[in-house]
């Protein structure tokens, strides 16, 4: 009984927003059942809670609760040197640390007006696209895992990811926490042997995408589960600031690789796939198609990579103090627009350091996508957003 009392005490403590009327009215006079999915739920990708109000199995209201994994990333970064934040960015979206490094390096380079040598740019593209590939593959794996596919697609994705992570380890010394990029280049150079092995791995990736396609794309159960589920209208997506494959699945042509052409992306020949329905299936297919485009970019980059230094001679490792000013560096991370906003007051550490995490901002439309759907689809829609809690909570 005491348990019941403490529970009601918690209910009384809920913020005002929770007591707002349900967005959807229940059918008949049935009461709403409140279910807390998470924080320790098998399908929340970490510690994340969704307070769901159900009418039968229909979702009437959904409140995402996060912050369980808050690590004070931004404040820590403001308290130490620019370089010392680089390893922390690995831990934001720990599935794709390279792109986090890249976005941060891009912001600092903008702030300091630092040039990056050619070869380093190529290496960044190669690693970034490898990261995108393995992120999309494992994200589809997680999605099907949530559909109850016993982890078979996930295991296939991890089989390929293993090969890519081996490349990362060989080059950077770590599989996930790479800490690879520096302001003005990359930390170490890739050996010819590494490039050769990368070419070999990239040659095998197309076969893997084909395998995935045969296994999943035409599967009737997958189509029945995902088509028409969790529709996100283009207008809402744009207004909510959704980016990445999710936005493109809603039919909006917005890829920062094309828009900004940061780094050397405007040298590569690739297409941006767009979906027309904005449902879970479109998000899945957009990721599949982007993986194929990534392979194309990788092949071009590996063919054209020039020789030369990987660090700009003007780059400073110690005593790095950019001039006063502010800068916003953004890239097309696998999950969406990842940006770092920095203000420098001329000191050794940033005055203000802010991350624009795609996972968090893409998650804001979760309730809009989930209203009225079956509770089983909440998990699916949540999975299709493709988030990493490390980035959401920071």
């Amino acid at each position, binding site marked *: 009984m005491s348990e019941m009392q403490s529970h009601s005490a918690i209910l009384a403590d809920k913020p005002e927003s929770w007591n707002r009327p349900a967005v959807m009215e229940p059918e008949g006079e049935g009461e709403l059942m409140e279910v807390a999915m998470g924080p320790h739920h098998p399908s929340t990708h970490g510690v994340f809670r969704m307070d769901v109000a159900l009418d039968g199995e229909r979702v009437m209201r959904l409140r995402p609760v996060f912050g369980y994994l808050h690590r004070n990333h931004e404040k820590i970064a403001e308290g*130490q*040197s620019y*370089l*010392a*934040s*680089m*390893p*922390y960015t690995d*831990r934001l979206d720990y599935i794709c640390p390279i792109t986090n490094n890249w976005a941060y390096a891009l912001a600092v380079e903008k702030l300091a007006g630092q040039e990056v040598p050619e070869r380093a740019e190529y290496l960044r593209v190669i690693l970034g696209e490898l990261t995108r590939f393995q992120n999309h593959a494992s994200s589809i794996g997680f999605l099907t895992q949530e559909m109850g596919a016993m982890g*078979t697609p996930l295991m*296939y994705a991890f*089989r390929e990811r*293993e090969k890519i992570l081996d490349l990362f*380890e*060989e*080059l*950077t*010394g*770590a599989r996930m*926490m790479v*800490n690879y990029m520096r302001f003005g280049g990359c*930390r*170490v150079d890739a050996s010819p042997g590494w490039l050769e092995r990368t070419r070999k791995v990239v040659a095998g990736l197309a076969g893997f995408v084909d*395998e995935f396609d*045969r*296994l*999943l*794309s*035409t*599967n*009737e*159960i*997958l*189509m029945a589960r995902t088509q028409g589920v969790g529709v996100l209208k283009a207008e809402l997506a744009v207004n909510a600031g959704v980016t990445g494959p999710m936005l493109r699945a809603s039919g909006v042509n917005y890829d920062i690789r094309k828009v900004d052409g940061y780094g050397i992306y405007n040298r590569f020949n690739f297409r941006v796939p767009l979906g027309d329905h904005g449902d879970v299936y479109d998000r899945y297919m957009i990721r599949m198609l982007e993986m194929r485009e990534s392979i194309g970019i990788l092949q071009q980059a590996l063919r054209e990579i020039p020789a030369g230094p990987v660090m700009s001679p003007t780059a400073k*490792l*110690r005593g790095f103090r950019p001039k006063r000013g502010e800068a916003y560096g953004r890239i097309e991370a696998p999950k969406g627009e990842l940006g770092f906003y920095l203000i420098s007051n001329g000191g050794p550490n940033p005055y203000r350091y802010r991350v624009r995490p795609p996972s968090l901002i893409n998650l804001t439309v979760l309730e809009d996508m989930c209203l009225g759907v079956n509770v089983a689809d909440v998990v699916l829609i949540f999975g299709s957003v493709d988030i990493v809690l490390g980035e959401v909570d920071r």
Partner: protein
Amino acid sequence: MLGEGILKGMAETAKNFFGSYFSAERLTTVEYPEQRIAPYEAARVFPFLVFDGSDWEAGMRCVACQICEKECPPKCIFIEKSKDKKPDALGKQQFYPARFDIDISVCMSCQICVEVCPFEAIKMDTEYELSTDNRFGGLLLDRRQLAKSNQYYHQIHPAEADGVDARLAAEKAKADAKTKITAEAKTAAIAGEGA
């Protein structure tokens, strides 16, 4: 449309089922305690301190400049500078760390200490089986535990260590030449005085 997608998927899994018995490409599992993958040369786990020669205390390259302590992102390094000086490998009088502790339960293996060290004194180890039954003392390594010989460094990172040795040798040669020149100049000056 009528179940052939499902059948195609089942064919795919059947291919993987049989493939896993024949193709090493598919079955990538390594049975860890019995089989091990040799670490890559670039692999990094936790830092250690390099010493030259055979005596760890005398040969330690670290001069307690405390740059790594300052640059360490999670602040897991603690250094206490010595009061006295003693000669380093180059024969120059230097401070040495009276205490050098790394809390490897805090360390995040980022390698920034290695990058910022001007004396090539701290390097990354590849040893990863570090579990201990003591949460506090067991993971707080002092300078005795951190000190590893240059031979060991050569063993785990051969190419990198060769580069470091060459650089150090060049520096030493330069320093020697400098001392020689100054010594010669001195002797010349003395000789000149004498003359």
